[in-house]
């Protein structure tokens, strides 16, 4: 059974794409057939994998299930990792979704035929709250939410709770700290406070603010591939272990019979 994992945050520039590409790479490297769907019309993931940000027929045709996603997928340079590229037409995805009877179920329908082929499907989402994100909440098994430690970060948790409550109930929310600077006392304090307050949602692993992450755009590759021994690469590895551990825990506990009183 495949897992659909979406990197999501209402804000931009918080490390969604970096997390999506690195985690997808690590999943594939372990031998799990993995797909990354770059839903962001800016196409940063697509650029990093050196693929043309274009899909035949555009996003509307794909959503209408007129073009099989199977034919639009590109193999990346990394064995086991495929990409469903971004397309500039995704900027109108809200409008396209709105034309369907059940707009929020659409992405899940597009993904349905791919779930048998891939063990992990990552969705790299554009920063917004829109019909696209609602559709993502419906399609995903878990949201991976990068959070920069700041005084207003707790606001993000309130929004996440709303998402979890509004969803179908199956959506798991896993937040992790991103772009942290351990020398900043504010970062340390906020992290300690939020970990304490949101132990269930907050993952242990955290991604540092590092030059290697910024160099991804120049190298057009994932940190875990071009600088596997770097601090950032090790942090992504730890994050991936943490994510998988939490996904496994999601399996419902075995019901135990009440003991006689």
């Amino acid at each position, binding site marked *: 059974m495949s897992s659909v994992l979406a990197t999501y945050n209402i804000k931009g520039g918080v490390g969604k794409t970096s997390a999506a590409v690195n985690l997808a790479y690590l999943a594939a490297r372990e031998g799990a057939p993995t797909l990354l769907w770059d839903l962001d019309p800016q196409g940063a993931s697509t650029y990093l994998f050196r693929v043309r940000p274009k899909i035949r027929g555009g996003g509307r045709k794909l959503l209408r299930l007129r073009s099989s996603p199977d034919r639009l997928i590109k*193999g990346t340079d990394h064995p086991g990792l495929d990409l469903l590229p971004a397309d500039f037409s995704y900027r109108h995805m809200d409008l396209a979704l709105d034309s369907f009877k059940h707009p929020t179920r659409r992405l899940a329908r597009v993904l349905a035929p791919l779930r048998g082929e891939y063990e992990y499907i990552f969705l790299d989402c554009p920063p917004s709250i829109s019909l696209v994100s609602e559709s993502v909440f419906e399609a995903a098994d878990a949201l991976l939410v990068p959070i920069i430690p700041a005084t207003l970060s707790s606001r993000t948790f309130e929004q996440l709770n709303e998402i979890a409550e509004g969803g179908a109930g199956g959506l798991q929310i896993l937040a992790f700290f991103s772009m942290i600077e351990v020398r900043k006392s504010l970062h340390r304090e906020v992290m300690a406070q939020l970990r304490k307050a949101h132990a269930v949602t907050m993952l242990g692993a955290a991604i540092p603010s590092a030059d290697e992450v910024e160099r991804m755009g120049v190298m057009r590759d994932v940190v875990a591939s071009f600088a596997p021994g770097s601090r950032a690469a090790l942090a992504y590895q730890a994050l991936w272990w943490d994510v998988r551990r939490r996904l496994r825990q999601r399996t419902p506990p075995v019901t135990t019979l009440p003991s006689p009183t």
Partner: protein
Amino acid sequence: MSTTDYLPPDEMSLDAAGDVLGGYLDVNERGETQLDRTFYDTFDGLLYSAGLSVVHERGRLALVDRVAGVERASAPMSPPTAPLLAMSLERCALRDELLPIVDVRALLPLVHVHSHIRAIDVLDGERKIVVRLTLEQPTVVASSATHVPLRPRVRLAAVRGYDEELDAVRDALQGELGWKAADQPLVDEAVRAAGGIPGGIPSKIDVPLSPDQRADAAAATVLGRLLEVIEANVEGTIADIDSEFLHDFRVSVRRSRSVQRELKGVFPVEELARMRIEFRWLQQITGDSRDLDVYVLEFEAMREIVPASMRTDLDPLLTVLRNRRLIARGEMVRALRSERAAAVRRDWAVLLDQLVQLPTDDRPAATTPIGELAGERIRKVYSRMVKMGSAIDGSSPPEDYHELRKKGKELRYLLELFGAPLYPGEVVKPMIKALKALQDVLGRHQDREVQVAMLRSLRDEVSALPGGPAALMAMGVLVDRLLVDEQAARDEFAARFAVFASKSERQTVRDTFA
């Protein structure tokens, strides 16, 4: 599946080939490595026939497409050192894919290949990998001292979503560079270089015949091929590599005996009489061993027949059967290694070789056209079966069913060995199908009869073992269920026989094999 392997022009070395590619395409060298591979197949080439191959490389055993090298399934393991049975693999995708193809046949090493590999990626304008190339200089390692170099080859691996780029690389290789699509997969070239035959030694007999051919020449050709199968399976039978060696050996002996009987007029009387005795002996010395192979192989299926609570109670029976099998194997191996067994095969080969040159005084059917002789035999054996079957009713003794089954085997061999190459497929194929359906019921009837007798004969031996009394109870239940199934086979007989011996079928046989 389209070819993915290409061969550079004869004079081009692997290094030169790589350098030339670099001149034509935008490439990135991934480095050079050494690779050791062992290819496997069953003795009769079941994987070859299915367009597949099993290969051990880089610590994994993989089932791959023979031509394109695309992996179907794989599992991590050390190279198998003994014949490998798919059923002995742990449950995994590889086992699931292999088992329906090879069933009880063991995988045997075909050939070891050591390769020097140069990996090159073809890039597009974004410096993205669009095709992966593997340049390979393979060498067959026949023994520690014998290495046979094969032709260098390049393998193209597609990257998903870049089909046009793959076509462009193909065009460049075949057009501008003058490379040729490989005429055979690497595994076949390696097997041939090592002195083997790709596809192994199938037990299927497929000898082309012409209706006007002299009957003795046709018989000698068919029997010569059957003797090849007998010879090929002796060693594997003795070594107990898998149960099919003995099975194929026995089927070929039985088919040979059938031809000896049915076409007796093409052989010199005295020699044939001696050979028939010797072939019957070959059949006898292998009979117990084969029966016990089947009992042990099908034991788990037999266990399923009794209620779940009694299944483990049958363990002492399995112990007895295994012990008996070992004893029977010992006796069979001694007989097969004897001078008598070697002499039969040797003398038979000589007789077949000289058959057409021998005087025809005591061989009245020697020069009869095979089409005529085979047709007459098919018609007669069919008519005999119709007569025997029509006389069978619910009260007939088991021997009547058994005799009909034996005659059915005779007809089946005639149809397969001579009917198929000499007569229209649209008559022979449905006839074999109806015959098989009838034989299945007769076979089931006979098997149950023999199994019940076997179980009754083992009662004392089983009861002497720990757990013996419980085993006897379970065996009693087993006997009851087997007898019920034997009766069911009897009940099904009439319907199957009616199809086989229908009026229209009888007319077709008269018209075709007149």
